[in-house]
């Protein structure tokens, strides 16, 4: 009898959670990183330096809205040989496949970074974003450069 009592009570001890509402995740607090960094970075100029492309994003004023600071941001740099819009997929702007490198804001003395591109020659398209550890900002303007 005791065995059956335990058996019947078990379901009440180990029951699944109730379904959540459809707008359960519409709360930014449940999103890693909270609000995304804004405004988007701005690339002021590109220049070639050997196997590197120097990205000057001096005009960037991106901050993490959750803290109001930019010190915890990481800047991500992307590059392709064709314009990212050509594929018609906006997600390409944030695809790891095109990422050239990243650098922490706290490690910068000025908003200018040399990105390694190797011995590639020809036209290259460069853009960047800022990441707060959880969310990524919108992409910057796309700049092109002819590498020799």
């Amino acid at each position, binding site marked *: 009898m005791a*065995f*059956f009592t335990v*058996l*019947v009570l*078990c*379901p009440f001890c*180990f*029951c*699944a*959670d*109730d*379904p*959540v*509402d*459809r*707008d*359960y*995740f*519409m709360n*930014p*607090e*449940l*999103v*890693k*990183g909270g609000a*995304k960094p804004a405004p988007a970075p701005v690339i002021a100029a590109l220049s070639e330096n050997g196997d590197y492309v120097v990205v000057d994003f001096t005009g960037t004023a991106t901050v993490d809205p959750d803290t109001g600071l930019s010190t915890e941001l990481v800047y991500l740099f992307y590059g392709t040989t064709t314009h990212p819009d050509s594929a018609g997929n*906006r*997600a390409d*702007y*944030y695809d790891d496949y095109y990422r050239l490198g990243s650098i922490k804001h706290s490690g910068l003395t000025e908003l200018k970074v040399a990105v390694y591109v190797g011995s590639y020659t020809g036209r290259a398209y460069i853009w960047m974003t800022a990441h707060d550890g*959880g*969310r*990524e900002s*919108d992409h910057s303007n796309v700049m092109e450069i002819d590498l020799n």
Partner: protein
Amino acid sequence: MYKKILQLFLICSIFTGTPLFAAGNGTPEVDCFHREVQYDYSMNDSGAERETGSDETVHAGECINNLTPQGGEKVSLRKALLLDLLVPGGGHFYTGNTGFGITFASLKVIGLWSLYYCYSDWKYRRSLYYSARDANESMDPDHRLYFEDPDGGYKTVDEYERDYDRAAQRITFAVLANVLVYASSMIFTYYHVVRINENAVPTFEIQYSCANNVSGREVLLTARYLYRY
């Protein structure tokens, strides 16, 4: 094949007057052959029962026709299967198999609970996936957002979708397991009912025995055959 031969042998024995031992189930008109023989069941020197007789072959038989019928009551197969289907272990308890009843009752209760749990979990995972998908689409469709999992950590929409698919798989397995348990239980119930009903059939037990007692030597032949009709 052997049964048929033995059956024929017994029938022939009856008609040729060979002594038989027949135990009936209460039918008083059972034909049997009876011959009185002299037996001495005195104890020999070693304490063992000793049977003495002349040097001729003796046939011994006795007719007992006032025995009570062998076998129990019949049980309803339909009722047993219905009980087994509706009540966990019901069919086994009905047929008197308490061990099977407890085992299958436990399996069925656990199986039904797991089915309920898997279904509830599936609904829960589905709600998380739909909510995450809508939120990602609404808040930032260009990025894969990481949403806080109520169980801890963060997951993307793709990961929530994977959890949802796994929950659906678990339901499938739970259904299959329950079908297996119910089918096994019904097969065992059917087997037990058939066995009980077989034993409930009125039976006649026919036994032939022949002792060939020669001085100094003893040859005993016993053939036993159970025939139900």
